[in-house]
């Protein structure tokens, strides 16, 4: 087996990469006294499974998980759909001002959010949308952000043009080419956008912080910060809550990677 050295190397590397993560798990299972024992103790003396329950019930996390789920799924769908549509427009058509407009797409990533935060907030205030989910979800449906447009466009560009031309000779409309040719071929990138978008919104803190006021509308990431204060943090509870918080994303990632791996047999279709 030629892959054996690679396997060994990967195991070693993942051990190093996982040290901090293992510490997170170990901390989540310790009692208050043991959290900072020195020298570091990897396996808690008595494992405190109760921390998970304690962290979860300290705040209305069940409600907040549902809220986070609604926001995150809506944003993910919006970003995948409109992001690929816009990327299609930018990658397959030559129209006046296209490159300038694409330049503007990229440029919007470069202006730091801190200075536009207050004006943007005021727009939502005028729309009477403060303390609703609209400011968090609606932007995802306007092209899904420069990052996704750029990413999907890069991938569309590496799919040979001949494929959609062939479909159009068969009489397919542009919308059909996008939906039936490009999207299926872009499974890896769409899965990537989907997963990254899901994780990004799942962990978003600033948006919910600024736009939501009513505790019953909060998201999990706001709750996590409540375990932290100037008198010292509830480190073990924070870690326990964080682990529960990332569980759905781990599961999602584990199963979604099938799609990164599906691969595209360009040769079979494009005839190169």
């Amino acid at each position, binding site marked *: 087996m030629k892959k054996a050295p690679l396997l060994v190397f990967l195991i070693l590397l993942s051990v190093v990469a996982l040290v901090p993560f293992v510490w997170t798990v170990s901390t989540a299972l310790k009692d208050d006294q043991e959290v900072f024992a020195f020298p570091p103790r990897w396996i808690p003396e008595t494992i405190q499974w109760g921390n998970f329950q304690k962290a979860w019930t300290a705040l209305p996390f069940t409600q907040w998980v549902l809220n986070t789920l609604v926001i995150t799924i809506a944003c993910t769908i919006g970003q995948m759909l409109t992001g690929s549509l816009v990327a299609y427009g930018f990658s397959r058509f030559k129209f006046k001002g296209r490159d300038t407009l694409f330049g503007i797409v990229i440029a919007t990533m470069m202006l730091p959010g801190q200075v536009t935060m207050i004006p943007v907030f005021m727009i939502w205030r005028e729309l009477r949308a403060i303390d609703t989910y609209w400011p968090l979800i609606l932007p995802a449906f306007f092209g899904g952000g420069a990052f996704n447009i750029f990413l999907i466009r890069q991938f569309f560009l590496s799919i040979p043009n001949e494929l959609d031309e062939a479909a159009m000779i068969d009489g397919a409309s542009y919308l059909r080419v996008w939906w039936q040719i490009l999207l299926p071929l872009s499974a890896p990138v769409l899965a990537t956008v989907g997963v990254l978008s899901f994780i990004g919104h799942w962990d978003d803190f*600033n948006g919910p912080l600024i736009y939501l006021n009513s505790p019953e509308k909060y998201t999990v990431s706001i709750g996590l910060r409540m375990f932290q204060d100037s008198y*010292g943090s509830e480190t073990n509870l924070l870690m326990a809550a964080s682990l529960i918080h990332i569980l759905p994303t781990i599961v999602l990632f584990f199963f979604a990677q099938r799609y990164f791996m599906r691969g595209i047999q360009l040769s079979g279709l494009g005839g190169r």
Partner: protein
Amino acid sequence: MKQALAFAGILIAALAASNCTTQTDRRIQLRYMAWGNVEQLALEQELVDRFNRKNPDINVRLFKVPQSAYGNKSIVMFASRTSPDVVRVDHFNFPQLADRNYFRDLSEFTETDPEFKAEEFFPLAMQENYSNGKLQALNVLFGGGVMIYNKSLLAKAGLADPYELSKKGEWTTDRALEYGIKLTEFDSNGRPSQFGLGFPNMPFYIGLMYGFGANLLNEDLSRSAMDTPEAAQALQWVADLRWKHRVCPSPAQGANAAFGFETGRLAMEFNYIGVTSRYREKIKDFEWDICPLPDGPKGKSLFVKGNQLVMYRETKHPEAAWRLMKFIVSEEAERFLYIEQRRQSPTRIKLAQSSEFLEPKAPPFNMPAVTESVKSGKVLPIGPRWPEVVTVVGSELDGLFAGRDRDAKVVLQRAHKAVNKLLSEDPGL
């Protein structure tokens, strides 16, 4: 595709639900915002619930915000004029915010409301509420810095009780250093296994500067006062704790949890009384108590600091907002917050001097140490430009506290110049 549509339907329904609030309610809707950790926010909620029960015509809703993001959120709300009606702000930010005219002058209420008597509150607590000569807040979560000490460790080392020493005026910085040295222990590898003193971070080093006869800024906060030998002496004492005597842990932010007081591996620390609710819950295997900050060569190191409860200038319900504010500093609320829950020190003189407060049934028992600082401490030199001042001073002191610079005098000269340059410049640039 069908599943996607069904899901979209659910989403829209959820969104619609998030949008509507049940508006059959005739009560005045009031919004109140505060920060805190899980337990502290639960106390705020309890206060709000009590108020709502007593005032059936008003419905207060509490906006709970994590501390680390409170500044950011409150600025966005003030600047976009969507602020809640009543807001708690940290005194570190109060003069700066008051300078922007975000708060209502409260004298229209305090002067006409017979139920409110300013003389019932500590003068220092009232003093913090004024900005530009106008009363713009009520003080909450007021208190002074104290030292918290591990009685068991001190007894084991055969050291006299610092609270008893302080009563005789013998609890001094020299003595504290001596305690620090005697209480610091190293393991066989030469690594510290127990520290004698916690690092006095901001604002505790300012308190110590008071004790050495120094201050950060001059009286009207217009210039630096750090060029005095006393200031250098004070900060040299602080830096030497770590770099000469090695009696305290690293000053790096957030890094001290390993030698947190509750672990029993830190003998004495500088902190606020507010932390003790956490200690009461966590500390099971040693005895502990509090004492005042050690006196410096030139006097007491006591300082005070509170939070300010303010009324947003453009609130639609000033009368209702005032009733809420008045309730939060009422005897009932203060008894709940400061005597039952021991969150900080009362701002009401009577409560702070009551036996309920001074003779508690759980540690810390030496409560007069708290009353002492709120009675005779000094306010901190916090003006409208405090965030900038403290950043400039902080970055100069970083080198001293990290052991890169060893001479406090040189560092303070630099800080002095930098602060004076800052204060002489246009505050908007």
